[in-house]
Structures are given as structure tokens and as C-alpha cells.
């Protein structure tokens, strides 16, 4: 029915702790934090002072370069403190939520045209759900994208299935698509090859593409590369399927309701499952209940491949659709590099474990070695499904060689596409941070 794209290369991380399909609830917390650093491309300017009262949807931050773009509060409450780091760098804006939530009111109803969509989305702060490709930063409302890509395919470890997160919000999802279709001449919805949810396969006003393959087959960059490759000067906007439903709800009610369904995955959780959660919420009380206590666990806002380690007292990121908890690595291993090591995960076949492809592992945060120069070649190619030479592109980024980066395809990828390369890298190179800083530099040079 729809076109199916087969993604040959990739890898399913054999990690234990997959969430069950059950939907639980997270104990609500009262402290929320807006963290400017987590909004890529944002130059923050404060819109509030300590002690200000805000409604859910009221502005907290502006983007210095375009004050239409703003970050709004997920809850109503009081701004309790503005936390600054070294050189007065803005780290968090902390908000203490009211017991009864009140919402700022925005216009209701379906927007008439593109300008109205942009105006209402930026005013409500929901604009930040749109990501710009290239660069993987907050979309620029002045751009004319050639397409909007809606991602409803999860291949990252423990990532939530769109069919579960959209349950009960099918109408909002569909009206969200309708709104987005005003933004560009082409709207693309990418779904898994075996997807059967009617909300997805029956979606209208959108071009549906199926994708088959292991991670990173669910990454938006892969979808763009197959459907409409990005050339220099072209722009695509990308958005997650659940955010489309949030957007649809906003246009229906005229209020900002950000609650979303996320997964809690990983062996650190007593009961890995789906839960309803508010973005930006503090995790302390939640983690006291949900985390196991037998070992030290790392809590990650986001996936185990791309998320941020937030610590038990940290906050859920504004855009996270999963929480992960995996054990911290502990101790040294005597001659670990010589022994056959049947019980160790490796994509590489120097470990006997490659003969047991279906085995799953309780993976910890161990680095398993020290960082080295690039030595092996052809390694990344096995998990990197693009017509891009990964080693050469990464070396161009290493050398800050803008011209080569551009020629080798830097516009077509973001850091998450290199996550698996980073996992399997023999030389333990920090690829994602390398790609991020290179893309930031490229963006700064080109604009």
C-alpha cells in the first residue's frame, strides 16, 4: 500500500530491561526546571524574575536572535529561582507548581494559513518541538522547508511505540497533521514496516512511508535520506509523532498541555513500563520509588544512546520521550582484553558471545577501554545506513574543515545518527559530541 524502504545496516542493542506495554502513572512532582542548554540553537534571554507567577504556557525565555521563539512554562506556579553557573551562564529556571493548574489561554480552532500556524505555535512555545534539518536545532520560522517529517517509528533501545503513545489521542494527532501540512508543500509520516495502528496507517493529509530495519532505521535522518535527500541550502523540519498530538490538542483547546507518555526502560527500574509524565519535572521522588537500590544506577533523560545523564535529582528534558536507568560500571577487570568473555556484548567478533546473537545483556556504563586515535576502518559502515563515508566525514569534523564537511554530507546527519558508531568504536572516540560541535560551528559559519 505504502512504499516500504528497507534499511540494511544497523544494530539492535541487546540490552535488558525492555518496558512492558502497561501504562502506569508517575507520582506528580512540584518542582520543574527550564534548562536552556537542552534547547539546541537557543540563545536564551530571560522573560521572568524570581517570584513571578506564571501560567502554563506563559513565556519564561526568549530566543535572542528571534524573539518570536520562546520557551514557555509547562505548569502554572511561581518562579522560585534562577540558577546561574560560571560567568553568569543561565543553567536552570526553577518553577514551583501550583496544586491546581491554570492555563494561559490562546486562540482555539483550526488555523487558516501558514502564517497563523507559525504565529500561534511560537507564541505558545510549542514551536520548539519542530527541529530543523540540517543542524538538528530549533526550527527557524523564516525558513521555507521543502517538507515536514513526522517520525512515528521507534528503533532506539526502549523507545516508546507510537501506537501506544497515541492511544486516546488519535483525533488530536490527525488534526495536528492537518496543521503541519500548512507549513510545507510536503508532509511525510514515517512508520514501521509492521505498523498496524489505524491512527497511523489511516492518517490523512500526509504521505506515509514504511521503513524496515534495525536502529537507526527509525532516525529521521534515515527517513529524509530515503524520501527526499537534503541538498545544500534545503531545509526540512522534523517532529515526533506524540508532539503532533500535543500540537493538535493545543489547537483544539487553546491551552498548552504537555503531558506525554514516556517509557521507563533499563534494568535500573523495578518495573520498566510506560508512564505518563510532565516534561521538565524533577525526578527525585519518582526515582525514590521506581529505582532499584541494589546497585548504583545512572538515570538518563532520553535513550541510552543519546540521552543526558541527569542524576537522581535531575530533571526530565523538555523533549524526552523516555527515561533510562542502567547500572554504573564498577571495578576493573583482570586481563579482560585477552579472555574469551562469553558474557560480554560486542558487535565485534573477537568475543565468543557473537555466536549467541539472541542473548541480551545487563549493559553498564563501562567504557571498556581507553580512547585512542582512529585505527580501524570499515567498522562504522556496518551500522551507518547512509551514502556517506563516516570515517572521512568525522575526520573532516575533527579538523574543523568546513568545506570537506559540507561536501561529505554533514547537512544530512545529526549526532544521533552516529550513536551506534560510538557504541561499537574500537578507539572509544566521543563521536556524538564531535558531530554536535562541528554542526554548531557549521551553522555559525553559514548563518
Amino acid at each position, binding site marked *: 500500500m505504502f512504499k516500504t524502504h528497507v534499511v540494511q545496516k544497523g544494530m539492535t*542493542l541487546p*540490552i535488558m530491561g525492555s518496558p512492558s506495554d502497561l501504562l502506569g502513572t508517575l507520582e506528580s512532582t512540584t518542582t520543574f526546571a527550564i534548562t536552556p542548554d537542552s534547547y539546541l540553537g537557543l540563545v536564551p534571554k530571560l522573560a521572568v524574575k524570581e517570584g513571578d507567577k506564571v501560567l502554563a504556557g506563559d513565556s519564561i525565555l526568549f530566543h535572542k536572535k528571534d524573539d518570536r521563539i520562546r520557551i514557555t512554562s509547562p505548569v502554572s506556579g511561581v518562579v522560585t529561582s534562577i540558577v546561574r553557573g560560571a560567568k553568569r551562564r543561565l543553567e536552570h529556571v526553577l518553577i514551583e507548581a501550583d496544586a491546581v493548574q491554570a492555563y494561559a489561554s490562546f486562540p482555539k480552532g483550526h488555523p487558516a494559513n501558514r502564517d497563523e500556524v507559525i504565529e500561534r505555535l511560537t507564541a505558545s512555545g510549542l514551536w520548539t518541538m519542530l527541529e530543523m534539518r540540517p543542524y538538528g536545532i530549533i526550527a527557524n520560522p523564516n525558513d521555507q522547508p521543502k517538507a515536514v517529517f513526522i517520525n512515528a517509528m521507534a528503533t532506539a533501545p526502549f523507545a516508546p511505540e507510537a501506537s501506544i503513545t497515541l492511544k486516546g489521542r488519535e483525533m488530536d494527532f490527525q488534526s495536528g497533521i492537518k496543521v503541519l501540512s500548512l507549513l510545507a508543500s510536503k508532509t511525510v509520516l514515517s512508520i514501521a514496516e509492521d505498523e498496524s495502528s489505524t491512527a497511523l496507517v489511516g492518517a490523512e493529509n500526509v504521505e506515509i512511508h514504511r521503513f524496515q530495519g534495525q536502529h537507526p532505521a527509525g532516525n529521521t535522518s534515515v527517513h529524509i535520506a530515503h524520501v527526499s*535527500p537534503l*541538498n545544500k*541550502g534545503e531545509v526540512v523540519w522534523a517532529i515526533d509523532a506524540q508532539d503532533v498530538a500535543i500540537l493538535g490538542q493545543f489547537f483544539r483547546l487553546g491551552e498548552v498541555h504537555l503531558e506525554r507518555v514516556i517509557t521507563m526502560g533499563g534494568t535500573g527500574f523495578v518495573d520498566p513500563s510506560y508512564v505518563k509524565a510532565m516534561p521538565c519535572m524533577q525526578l527525585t521522588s519518582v526515582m525514590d520509588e521506581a529505582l532499584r537500590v541494589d546497585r548504583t544506577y545512572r538515570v*538518563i533523560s532520553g535513550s541510552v*544512546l*543519546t*540521552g*543526558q*545523564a541527569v542524576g537522581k535529582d535531575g530533571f526530565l528534558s523538555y523533549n524526552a520521550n523516555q527515561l533510562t536507568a*542502567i547500572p*554504573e*560500571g564498577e571495578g*576493573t*577487570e*583482570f*586481563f*579482560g*582484553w585477552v579472555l574469551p568473555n562469553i558474557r*560480554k*556484548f*560486542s*558487535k*565485534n*567478533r*573477537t568475543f565468543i558471545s557473537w555466536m549467541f546473537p539472541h542473548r541480551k545483556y545487563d549493559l*553498564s*556504563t*563501562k*567504557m*571498556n*577501554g*581507553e580512547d*585512542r*586515535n582512529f*585505527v*580501524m*576502518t*570499515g567498522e562504522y*559502515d556496518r551500522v551507518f545506513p547512509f*551514502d*556517506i*563515508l563516516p*570515517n*572521512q566525514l568525522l575526520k573532516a569534523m575533527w579538523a574543523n574543515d568546513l568545506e570537506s564537511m559540507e561536501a*561529505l*554530507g554533514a547537512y544530512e546527519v545529526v549526532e544521533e545518527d552516529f*550513536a*551506534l558508531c*560510538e*557504541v*561499537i*568504536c*574500537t*578507539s572509544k572516540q*566521543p*563521536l*556524538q*559530541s564531535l558531530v554536535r560541535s562541528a554542526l554548531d560551528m557549521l551553522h555559525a559559519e553559514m548563518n
Partner: protein
Amino acid sequence: MKFLQNIFDATRPAVTDGKFKALMPMHNALETMMFVPDHNTDNGSHVRDAIDLKRTMVTVIFALMPALLFGLFNAGYQHYKALGLLVDGDLISQFLTLDNALFGAWRLVPMILVTYAAGLGVEMVFAFKNKHAVAEGFLVSGILIPLIMPLDMPLWMIAVSTIFAVLIAKEVFGGTGMNILNIALTARAFAFFAYPSVMSGDKAWVNTTTEAGQSVVDGYSGATALGEMAATGSSSYSAWDAFIGIIPGSIGETSVVMILLGAVLLIVTRIASWKIMLSAVMGALLMGWIFNGLASYMISPEQQVYMAMPFYEHLLYGGFAFGIVFMATDPVSSAHTERGKWIFGFLVGMLSIIIRVFNPAYPEGVMLAILFMNVMAPLIDHYVVAANISRRQKRSTVKAS
């Protein structure tokens, strides 16, 4: 193992801040060799594959072991054969003797120790100077170098060759991962041109030192198969002998069957590129086959005989198999792109046979072929990369028009 860990923990302050700062790289190298360190990931991917460079390198060393062990026996066997001291009996009872192995080990072990001492010494100095950890690249080079040098080579020559190779071919370019030439072959090339009398000739590859009362058998020549071919066009050793490896030669190179065992390990573990190995074999076969066709047009009769040799036998003689499996596949100095690897390997194979057949001064062609292609590899990659870039540009212009 707790007590070892305690020793490292107790001595760490002295080398990080104390007066033994110069020993920091050595402390770190020893500690990380015994214990996989307890480093954890930062942000980015929070889990990592169990592989690291040490594991990769030690796998190559395991792959070298069959050839190395066989070489020990063969060194002793060739020595006692030259002196006419083999006991009567079948080949197996003559070959697999403790005497043979001890004879080989007695010479090879000091070579390995000297190579490691020289090479790692240079690495440590640079690690200290540039403030980085000692990389593992030399773990393999340190075994490869003794395996391709003559058994009788004075140890100081090995040390000088090793130091030259590590300095000029590696550290000058930035250390492991940055070199353009294969380190072990650079050491061998240096020795080949600096000490030709030790590295070539009939006496080089079989130890014929005699003790009181011993003498070399009348009419014995220690020439290698390739040496004979360069001189007369044919060899007194059969292809079968060469395949098994009971012929004169450097320790590692003679036994094709043992090298194949190593090749299987390297290919299964994906440490070495099967593309390079396969294409090199295809290149050599093609060149041998072309020579078969051209043999009758040659002027000298030796050349005619040499070129008429069945084309597949080229794979069995000399260091071809060893070079292709363990040196052409060096990930750093070979082509880095997957398409480039096919071209790289193919040209290594062709050039090895061309040099071997046409240049009697260098009966061993594979060394120069690989070194030459090491230099050419970036050029091959350049064109593969350019093709990728132009595909991208084409897509964008087609779209624009």
C-alpha cells in the same frame, strides 16, 4: 588480583605528581594491560562495546601464533638439515622434535624481546613527551618484525631497524593511527637496504653456524625458493613443500597453511579486511596468468621458465601469503574506504608478482609492493571520496535545474 591492583594504586601518586613523572606512561601501560580500567562513559552513548584496541591487537597476535610456532620448528629443521644432523625417519619425526623448537626459540625469543624493548622504548618516550597513553599498535609490530627478519641477524641491527621504523614511519606522523607506512615492513625495508649482506643471499635464511665437529653438508645451498627462481627460473622445492612450509625462509613466512589458519581467525573476527586479502590473491593470480601467456616471448631462458610457472604457485612461495594476510591488511596504512580496499589489494597482488619476476635483485616482491601501495592508498581513497562527493553534488544540481 587484589594485590596487583593495590600495587598500582599505591604507586600511582608517585608517577602522577611525584618525582617519577617520567614513568607515568609506563605505569599506565602496565596497569591497563593487566586491568581493563574502570572508566565510565560520559554523555553521548552511555553503553559501549566490549572491544578495545588492545583486544583487537591481541587477536592479531593470536592469529600469528600458528605461523610463529611452525616457524620455530622449521628453523631448527632447516638448520639440522643443512648440517646433515637429521635423524633417520619420516618427515614428521624429523620435523616435530623438541630440538628443532628449542633451536628456533633460542634465537627468536631474544629477537622478540629486543624488538619490543626498542619499539616500546620509543613509544614511551613519545607518550611522555606528547602526554598521551601508550597506544597498542606496537604490540603487533613487535611480533611481526622478528618474524620477517633473518634468524641470524645481530640483535643490534634489529633494534636499529625497529627504532628507525617507529620513529620515521610512525611517531613523526603522530603515532598509532597516523602512520602512512606499515611499521614492520618499514623496519624490514630499512634492514634490507642498510644491511644487505645480512638480509639477502644464500646464507641469510638458514642458520648454518657449526659447532666443533659439525660441518655443512657438501653441496648444500640455503637459497630460498624465490632466490632459486630469480637465478634459474625454477625451484628445487615443490609447491607442496612450500604450502606446508618446510622450506628456507624467515620464521613467519614459510608455512602457507599456518598463515591461512591465522587468516581464518582474522576474517571471522573481522579484524582484517577480507576484501584486501581476496583482491590481492586475485591480483596475483591474474598477473601470474598473464605471465604464463607472455612466457614464450621472453629472451632469457630463466625468465621463460619462471614466467611459465603455474600461475597459482606464486601464492605459495616467499612472503606473499604472510604479507597479504598480516601486512597489507593493516587498517591504518591500507586504503580506508571499502571500495578503495578492493583496488588496494588487487594492486598489491599484481605488483608483488611483477617485482618478484622482473627484478632478480629483489626476489621478495611483496614487501616493496605493499610499501608502495601504502604510499598510494591515500590517492585511491581520494578518488573514492571524490566519487561520493560528486554523487552528492550531482543530486543537488539535478534537483536545482
